[in-house]
């Protein structure tokens, strides 16, 4: 600033400087908030893109909207402690809360119309460490990056006839997921599905050494292979009815399997499976002991954010957990604000 020649000009220059500081600070905040970057992929955009053509279903999760709550326990055998100091891997029983769900933004669709089944899971140890996860039955994720996932959602909503062919050409990694999705071998129960983390996490052992791993829940129940047509004939809510009856009779069980990356295995791309033969650890058994309708069940309040990790587990260079966390938070904020629209009392049994 040039040396002011007189007091009035000095005052004017000072006021201009003060104004400039305020404008610059506001501009910097606006830039950081993305208000000046309409192309930025935001949680809002991602969540909006998940909505069905008729618009989001208010009061419900924006994806995996149809679901049913469960509680139970994780019986840790202590083997997981070899790669992680997380309390959940200490031998013993740890309380579990979760939710079986369908990968759809519409909570009232028929169970046989949705290929992707999921499990939201929370293992909370007595000493207060909370581990949340959201797993699905697909062996891999459709695409490599959150940006590509957003593009996939937009393409799916597109009315152009060749949109999906063009997308598949640009994102050839979707073929693996596509082959799985098209396979007619469905199962007849939530209890017969494997549930996979898909994303790689870093498991940190007691010495502080990191081990990259993906993990899965492998069902003990033998699968009853069924076509979606046959499943559809059993009713719109067949999966919820079946799991309720099954668990009332006896707990449903899964083995928690940690699969370790070999040196050189990529951990950033959940659309690509690691080769067979990777070292794996069976860390214990998940027991689902009680099923409750979502409306009054304990899972409704929970955001199964896969970045809510206990000491001993961290995110890896896989970009998805962060993107999912941001989008899940947005979905949670929206649906809790729309609580009045949610059917809080369970509907009569079908």
């Amino acid at each position: 600033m040039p040396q002011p020649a007189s007091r009035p000009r000095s005052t004017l220059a000072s006021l201009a400087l003060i104004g400039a500081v305020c404008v610059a600070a506001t501009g910097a905040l606006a830039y950081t908030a993305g208000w000046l970057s309409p192309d930025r992929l935001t949680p809002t955009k991602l969540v909006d893109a998940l909505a069905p053509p008729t618009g989001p279903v208010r009061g419900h999760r924006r994806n995996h909207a149809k679901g049913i709550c469960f509680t139970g326990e994780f019986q840790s055998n202590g083997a997981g402690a070899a790669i992680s100091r997380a309390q959940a891997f200490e031998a013993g029983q740890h309380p579990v809360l979760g939710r079986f769900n369908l990968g759809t933004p519409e909570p009232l669709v028929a169970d046989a119309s949705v290929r992707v089944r999921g499990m939201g899971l929370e293992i909370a140890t007595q000493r207060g460490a909370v581990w949340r996860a959201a797993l699905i039955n697909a062996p891999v994720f459709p695409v490599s990056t959150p940006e590509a996932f957003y593009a996939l959602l937009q393409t799916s909503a597109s009315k152009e006839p060749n949109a999906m062919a063009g997308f598949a050409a640009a994102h050839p990694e979707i073929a693996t997921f596509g082959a799985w999705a098209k396979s007619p071998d469905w199962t007849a129960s939530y209890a017969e599905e494997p549930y996979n983390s898909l994303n790689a996490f870093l498991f940190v052992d007691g010495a502080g050494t990191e081990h990259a791993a993906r993990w899965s829940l492998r069902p003990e129940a033998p699968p009853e292979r069924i076509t979606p047509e046959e499943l559809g004939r059993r009713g719109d809510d067949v999966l919820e009815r079946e799991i309720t009856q099954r668990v009332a009779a006896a707990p449903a069980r899964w083995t928690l399997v940690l699969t370790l990356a070999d040196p050189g295995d990529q951990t950033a791309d959940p659309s690509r499976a690691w080769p067979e033969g990777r070292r794996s650890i069976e860390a214990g058994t998940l027991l689902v002991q009680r099923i409750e309708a979502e409306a009054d069940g304990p899972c409704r309040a929970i955001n199964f954010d896969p970045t809510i990790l206990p000491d001993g587990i961290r995110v890896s260079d896989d970009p998805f957990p962060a993107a999912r966390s941001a989008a899940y938070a947005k979905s949670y904020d929206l649906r809790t604000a729309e609580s009045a629209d949610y059917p809080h009392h369970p509907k009569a049994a079908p």
Partner: protein
Amino acid sequence: MIAGNTRFTAAQRLLHWSMALCIIAMFFIGVGMVSSVMPKYVPLLATHKTLGLAILALALVRLAVRARSGAPPLPADLPAPMRLAAELSHYGLYALMFALPLLGWAMLSAGAYPVVLYGGIRLPAIVPQSEVLHTLLWNAHYYLAFAFFALVLTHVAAALFHALVRRDGVFEAMAPIGSRIGAAPGTDSDAGHAATRKA
């Protein structure tokens, strides 16, 4: 209040400027993280929670220090409306320093989120899980954060107005480094150093 003081104590100035850095960082971390799906979202959120609790703790210390050390008087010739604005805005700044971390903490509690800071420090829930409460607290946290930003900006503008236009010693009372303005010889170790005033 200690009569005759023209500057805040060194402890008060240290608290003021370190909290200023934290609070300004929080505005940018806050708006940045909620508009991002990038990997940085995870560390930004952890930083936001940790820094928020740090601000709450510092605010408690600051209030105690303020109660003990007081504040230098405003210039006698300060017009009454400006004096009123100064007093009200400082009540607002103090209130928001406490309110925003508490609202954030309560909002996470109402959302059944575990509140975990850097270093694995786990905080207890301070309100019960409730969708209605979560929404109320979320809105309060969101809108009051922008109000806080506006108030901080007003505070900065007023400080610069005192420093550059009125030149009445108000800015120097909280300036991080020494200034000749308002410091009687021998009362302040910084007095007599080279002038640091701008303009």
